[in-house]
């Protein structure tokens, strides 16, 4: 049995005196798609920041294929093949669409994703490649953010709130494109407010509530009542 892509054990995270995560345990196996749901402030984004190295973690709390990565810098984590599509897209405003994508390739990991592949996935980006990234619509910006993460040919890709602030028709398009993105053995963690969307593309689901894992289950069989209970904390 190979080491899992990501194994999180007893993860605590703090912002100054405020503790945002309490002993979170989680595991992502190769090729697996995980959904993380939870209310605002449940600690989802903090968890993403911990995994990607934007927050420094305690020893042995985050293991990547058997190696402790909890104390690596974000760029070192990126080199190991963990990429993120950040909440709110966070494109570089002074870079063109194409340059934003090329920044993603900076880690120089070999793999199927390059400019051509991203343009094939999202043809509109090729038409807009020389525009400033901020001049695009929200949905197109999300495509750039996804493309930028793919350009690093990650083994594990984290999607933080990809449907936030987008029109339903755009969300549908992006979720339609997802299987083509994560189908090639790439693992993914999808953080999402839209629970049914998250369940439809994932194999397992975790729910966070006030910094703790309140539910862990299979996405296809999980009961709605269990989700409500885990989500809101009402018995």
């Amino acid at each position, binding site marked *: 049995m190979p080491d899992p892509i990501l194994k999180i054990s007893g993860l605590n995270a703090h912002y100054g005196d405020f503790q945002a995560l309490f002993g979170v345990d989680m595991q992502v196996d190769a090729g697996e798609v995980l959904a993380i749901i939870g209310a605002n402030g449940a600690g989802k984004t903090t968890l993403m920041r911990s995994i990607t190295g934007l927050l420094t973690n305690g020893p042995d709390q985050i293991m990547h294929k058997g190696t402790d990565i909890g104390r690596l810098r974000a760029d070192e984590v990126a080199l190991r093949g963990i990429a993120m599509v950040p909440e709110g897209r966070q494109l*570089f405003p002074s870079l063109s669409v194409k340059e934003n994508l090329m920044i993603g390739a900076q880690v120089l990991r070999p793999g199927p994703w390059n400019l051509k592949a991203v343009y094939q996935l999202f043809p509109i980006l090729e038409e807009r490649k020389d525009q400033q990234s901020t001049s695009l619509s929200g949905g197109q910006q999300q495509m750039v953010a996804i493309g930028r993460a793919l350009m690093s040919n990650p083994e594990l890709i984290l999607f933080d709130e990809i449907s936030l602030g987008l029109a339903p028709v755009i969300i549908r398009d992006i979720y339609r494109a997802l299987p083509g993105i994560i189908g090639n053995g790439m693992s993914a963690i999808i953080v999402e407010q839209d629970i049914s969307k998250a369940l439809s593309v994932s194999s397992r689901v975790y729910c966070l509530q006030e910094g703790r894992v309140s539910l862990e289950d299979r996405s296809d069989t999980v009961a709605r009542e269990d989700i409500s209970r885990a989500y809101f904390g009402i018995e």
Partner: protein
Amino acid sequence: MDWLNAIVQGTLLGGLYALFAAGLSLIFGVMRLVNIAHGDLIVLAAYLGLTVTTATGIHPLLAIVVVVPVMAAIGYVLQRGLLNQTLGDDLLPPLLVTFGLSVIIQNALLEGYTADPQKLAAGNLETASFAFGGLTLGVLPVLTFSFAIAVIWGLQWIFYCTALGRAFRAVSDNQDIAQLMGLNRRHIFGLAMALALAVTAIAGILLGIRTSFDPSGGGGRLIFGFEAVIIGGLGNLWGTLAGGVILGVAQTVGAKIDPGWQILSGHIAFLLILAVRPNGLFPRISA
């Protein structure tokens, strides 16, 4: 004709000011660092040029080939070893640390080279001139101005046409996200400071050929550099060249009115522009 002459000479002088300013503009643009020691680093470069020319006997312009990489290396080490630790949400720590650095550099130069004014001996180049359309232009000022254009053009090219420039702009936009993309901002900042001090090296050598310098001369260069950056608008390199030219012209025209007014009229021009256009003439980034 005298007035035209003053304007042309001022424009050429502006090239030197633009060289003072380009490094300041670059590091502020990439990492929002205001480097109070910038002027002293220019003077340091001039002294390094002095050491190289006296030790080897080569022409000061050739010394650029040696001083540029040395200053670039100093810049990288300075940034990684010291200045990176001061960067954060607060603008004050880098200001204080670079102010302290300025004091240290001045005193180290005083210790190492004494307070005597020095000059880089460049032979004929110091006085050579040629006639152009009824004006007499010094070869050195024209050369300095050409250097300024070449340096600004080169920086512009690095910024907008290379992977390094893309990294500079990405880190400038959003440090966290750039880090997520595998860019180590500490390294990128080190490279930016190396590039800035490479430009500083050119500025220092040309300064040393043009005029005498002593360890306390950094402050004045810093002010001219700052003024050129602010006049031109933050984050715009060609604007910085324009700012340097405006400053240079204001000084030579002021000196034409009354020799005692040279420096003052440069400052007055700066204050006027700051009053009318607080963001400078061609701003790219909002402060």
